[in-house]
């Protein structure tokens, strides 16, 4: 089983509902965010093109954050979800330095934290909070290893890109373009 996400940049309007949903669902401390909206404007006026992406931890296959963690607090659980055990984290910052997506931050309580793919919801068969609230239904979540899952089908059918593939992390969030 390999959880992954596909996000349709052609449908995303950048409303940041996913950001708020995540902050509410996961009690993200005030002033922090586990997901965010990035916009890329390319071209020259009047031939401009706008791409909007909802970004978060990419739950990579090759995880530099897990590799550099000196205590084993950062680890991969079933389905390839990367999470941090707060009780084992010493707050050294190694995983934060090692993430090319800057997806992690230090919780005010002193441990590294980030997107968990809402593993507490996924365990119960629900979608992550961000996916479930998206008003344009631009996000797909599921098992990439299951060829019949919605996410696997759309990744197989559509053209996609991943963020900073040159960083060698094999990210598992696919941006449909």
């Amino acid at each position, binding site marked *: 089983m390999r959880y992954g996400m596909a996000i349709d940049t052609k449908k995303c309007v950048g409303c940041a509902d996913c950001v708020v949903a995540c902050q509410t669902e996961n009690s993200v401390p005030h*002033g922090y965010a586990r997901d965010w909206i990035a916009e890329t404007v390319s071209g020259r006026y009047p031939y401009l093109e706008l791409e909007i992406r909802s970004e978060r931890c990419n739950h990579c296959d090759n995880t*530099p954050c897990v590799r550099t963690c000196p205590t084993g607090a950062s680890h991969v659980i079933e389905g390839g979800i990367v999470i941090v055990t707060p009780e084992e*984290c010493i707050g050294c910052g190694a995983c934060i330095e*090692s993430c*090319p997506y800057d997806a992690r*931050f230090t919780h005010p309580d002193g441990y590294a934290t980030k997107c968990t793919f809402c593993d507490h919801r996924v365990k119960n068969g629900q979608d992550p909070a961000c996916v479930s609230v998206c008003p344009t239904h631009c996000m797909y979540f599921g098992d990439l290893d299951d060829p019949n899952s919605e996410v696997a089908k759309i990744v197989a059918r559509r053209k996609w890109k991943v963020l900073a593939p040159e960083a060698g992390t094999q990210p598992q969030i696919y941006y449909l373009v």
Partner: protein
Amino acid sequence: MREELITSSRMNPHIDPVLHIWEWQIPLYLFLGGLAAGLLFFAAYYTISGKTEKYRTAVKIAPIIAPIAIILGLMALLLDLKHPAYFWQLYTTIRLESPMSWGAWTLGAVAPLSIVWVVVNLKEIFPAFGCKVPFIKRLLIMVIKEADNGDVKWDWKWEFLQKFEKFVIKQRVPMAWAMIVLALILGVYTGILLSAFNARPLWNTSILGPLFLTSGLSTAAATIMWLSKDHHERTIFSKIDLMLITIELFLISHLIMGMLAGSEVQIQAVELLIGGEFTVAFWTNVIVLGLVVPAILEILELFKFKVPVAVPAFLILWGGLMFRFIMTDAGQVTRYLY
């Protein structure tokens, strides 16, 4: 044109707008760790080669700084942790993939070894000494004896410590072998710690390990040169330092060349040092004041000019410290996205 923006106002403290999760603590530790590694390396090297008397400062006096530097460095590391009370988690597991893990274990081995090394030499350097501060004297005479004239005498109060001391003195050479290996690991580790992060393109070069090791050895040679009162020893360490500075300049030019021949992110990263934000700081403090000027002064000294030893020594230490600060800060500016 291509412009990338985060529009949902992500402003995670220490992450945005520019990553600065590591502040002064890490570069200070990298400097102190490198210095300690260098000092222990020279002490061990001259012990193994049987020149303990010829290089007395290097073997017996300068290493006193090593445990002090290690302890200060460990304190800086502890201050860097956001969960300092959990630091012991480092010693509940060995993770060979994580440089920080084996760095922690190396420090755990080097720190006691360096203390033992210093303590067995103290008796020889300070057999007895007057101690004017009553508080420190009271602390000292808890473990060592007081002489009849009121001086503190470096003799252990307990027999088991005396026995242990005798045992250690006999084992000096095997201890030096352990120390030389650990010192090299510690010195390389200060560089590998940074180079293991491929997300920060400026750090992500394998040359950083040897470069930081060389720089650490060079700061240690400068310290020994500064402390030594023996003319011959000073000249030797001045020559060693000159050689190390040359190697360092060579490695730095390779760092820059290698990055310029690298991928886009690495080219952008190294441009911080050759035209960008950190250029002035890097060239003045590290290259000119930290390497070239002391090298010239040391060459002048070899040609019998009178140069106060403190000047090149201080400049080398300054350059080493600044090099760590600049690399740590500049590295965190470099990234893949946005």
